[in-house]
């Protein structure tokens, strides 16, 4: 019987609320001295006020991880994932309970820790390696590998302050990826860097866990990456373990729950939203849904309906009513405007109305997007005038249809490939190839990224 590599027993972490604790000046302490003394006498009062000023980031968390196991941790923002990792990596101490780690520990809560802009790439590799816990000889032994992984051979003698963000991240990842402790704790670090590099890193991590028998604890919002890497997952919610089990099952339950949280099928109030426009007609609320999906969850490639409630203050003609899907704080990817497309303006009498916009197939890959709505008048020679526009109306979390493959890019594009070889013909291979090509030609539309 092996002792577990990680043993977490009734772990709890309490944080103080309020800003006083953060920048406490000596003055406050002195000013508080009399009340502190009184507080010590009136003990019960003090305790209750203290309880109110605290919040538990984690409470009563128990789990064990066997040596060589790869465990994923999922949960919404603020569920306690980062706090858990901070305790496991000894950056902070728990308020109660304990965490026991058996084996050499390495943690990666950030890439490029200790990187100094004035130092060169090569210098930063050595520095960062030491900070992450590698010995000088280890760094030396893997130096070439690290450089090759980063692909920055030509820039090793350049101070990293002259690097682009991408180069900086690649160098930082490269060092981190060559950390080989027995227990590796990794936070959301894969969220940064481009998709290609993410894939490289995930590859490296699965190599570490399967090939080298390392124990890995992996936190990510990228559920596909979690599914790919971790056979088992823990779902944290409000600082507690909500579920613990096989990843596919946990992720499924988590997604279902999350859909409800991100308001599929429920109305989001827009009356106080940040907006612009003349306001002659205004959006009051928005609600999206996926009527075709058995779970009601909007999915990549599925049908999406967006309902809006609006109030017109006078009689208006709306010649454009657009539903825009965009990357949060980023560019608009889809703008669906059936009113403008149909060239028949909607006429609203004063009062409340409801409009439904349907998108036949959301050809975007799984991920988080923002739904924005806008109404305007104009076109056919007249200047446009915006009645009302809310860019950040509601968040849309698009699920992946089936596959657990990592996706690249934002849009889904039907595509296929055909092979023409110019090497020495070898008849048997060609013959086995033939039926496959025939199938592809027979109308199937294989998409290389997403399986429907």
């Amino acid at each position, binding site marked *: 019987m*092996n002792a577990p590599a990680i043993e977490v027993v009734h772990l709890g972490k309490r*944080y103080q609320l309020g800003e006083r*604790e*953060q*920048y*406490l*000046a*000596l*003055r406050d*302490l002195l000013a508080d001295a009399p009340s502190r003394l009184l507080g010590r006498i009136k003990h019960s009062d003090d305790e209750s006020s203290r309880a109110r000023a605290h919040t538990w980031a984690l409470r009563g968390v128990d789990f064990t991880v066997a*040596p*060589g196991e790869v465990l994923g941790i999922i949960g919404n923002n603020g569920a306690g994932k980062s706090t858990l990792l*901070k*305790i*496991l*990596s*000894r*950056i*902070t*101490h*728990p*308020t*109660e*309970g*304990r*965490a*026991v*780690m*058996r*084996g*050499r*520990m390495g*943690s990666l*809560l*950030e890439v490029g*820790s*200790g990187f*100094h802009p*004035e*130092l060169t790439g090569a*210098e930063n590799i*050595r*520095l960062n390696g*030491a*900070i*992450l*816990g590698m*010995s*000088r000889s280890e760094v030396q032994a893997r130096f070439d590998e690290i450089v090759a992984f980063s692909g920055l051979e030509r820039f090793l003698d350049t*101070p990293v302050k002259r690097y682009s963000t991408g180069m900086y991240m690649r160098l930082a990842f490269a060092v981190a990826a060559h950390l080989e402790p*027995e227990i590796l704790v990794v936070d959301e670090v894969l969220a940064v860097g481009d998709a290609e590099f993410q894939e490289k890193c995930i590859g490296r991590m699965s190599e570490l866990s399967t090939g*080298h*028998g390392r124990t890995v604890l992996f936190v990510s919002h990228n559920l596909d990456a979690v599914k790919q890497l971790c056979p088992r997952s823990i779902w944290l919610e409000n600082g507690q373990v909500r579920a613990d089990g096989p990843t596919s099952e946990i992720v499924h339950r988590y997604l279902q729950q999350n859909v409800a949280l991100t308001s599929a099928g429920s109305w989001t109030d827009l009356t106080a939203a940040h907006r612009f426009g003349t306001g002659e007609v205004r959006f009051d609320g928005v609600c999206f849904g996926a009527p075709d999906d058995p779970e009601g969850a909007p999915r990549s490639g599925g049908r999406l309906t967006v309902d809006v409630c609006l109030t017109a203050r006078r009689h208006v003609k709306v010649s454009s009513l657009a539903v825009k899907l965009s990357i949060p704080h980023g560019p608009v990817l889809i703008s669906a405007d059936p009113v403008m497309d149909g060239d028949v303006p909607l006429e609203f009498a004063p009062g409340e109305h409801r409009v439904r916009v349907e998108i036949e197939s959301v050809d975007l890959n799984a991920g988080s997007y923002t739904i924005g709505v806008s109404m305007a008048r104009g076109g056919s020679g007249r200047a446009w005038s915006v009645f009302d526009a809310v860019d950040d109306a509601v968040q849309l979390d698009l699920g992946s249809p089936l596959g657990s493959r990592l996706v690249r890019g934002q849009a889904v594009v039907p595509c296929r490939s055909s092979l023409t070889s110019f090497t020495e013909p070898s008849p048997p291979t060609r013959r086995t190839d033939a039926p496959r090509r025939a199938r592809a030609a027979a109308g199937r539309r294989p998409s290389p990224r997403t399986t429907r």
Partner: protein
Amino acid sequence: MTETTVDNYTPLITVNEPSSGKLLPDLTALARSREVLYFLTWRDVKVRYKQTAIGAAWAILQPLIAMVIFTVVFSHWASVPSEGLPYPIFTYCALVPWTFFSTALTLAAGSLLLNEKLVTKVYFPRLIIPLAAVCGTLVDMGLATIVLVVMMLFYGIAPTIGLVFVPLFVLVACAAAVGLGALLAALNVRFRDVRYIVPFLVQLWIFVTPVAYSSSLVPAKWRWAYALNPMVGVIEGFRWAFLGVPLSGGTVAISVVTAAAMLLVGLIVFRRMEDTFADEI
């Protein structure tokens, strides 16, 4: 058993509990992390003089310029006695350890805040951070000492056998700088007031330290109290070792004890506060 490890590596067990309850920082963990200390020191030294026009010459210029000013003000104008020695070398010999101490103290006190990213994102014994600040300053002192030797050649002053004790005096200065530096660094995390206190403290401290004057000016009955300032013992020791100025054993003893006490108190306070650095910084 992990088959992948080739050596007979016994798993290192780490337990993270609410509080370790220890009085002092874990010195074995500190020893295990000496690589990080080395690299952080190296980084501090390297970065300090990168993109400066004259680079490490600053380490020499700082005490040298102070020497020139002190010579003009205290020797030429105020006629402060210098134990029969040329005043420039008399004061420079004190400025070498003093510049080290004041710089090390200032850097150590601000070190945790400066390295906030490391404190909140990576684990290694926290004491390494102020320690690296002090170690980096040692390099500067080494450079400044070379100038001292050149000046001794210039003035034709022969060193005494006391030179073998110089490392001891450096150690005393280090103990005081680490102790007080760690204490201030820890307090700085919670009370940002420290940021304003430190420059003021260093400014005042030089007046109760025999840098510009000789400690023989201090009335004999107050010498013991004067020696409570560990830098008094260190500077007298330097003057004794390099320039042959008579040294009182009692002064050195008192200074050694205060420096040790500073180190101890600094480490205890640091240990008590370090658990919450990541939460409070």
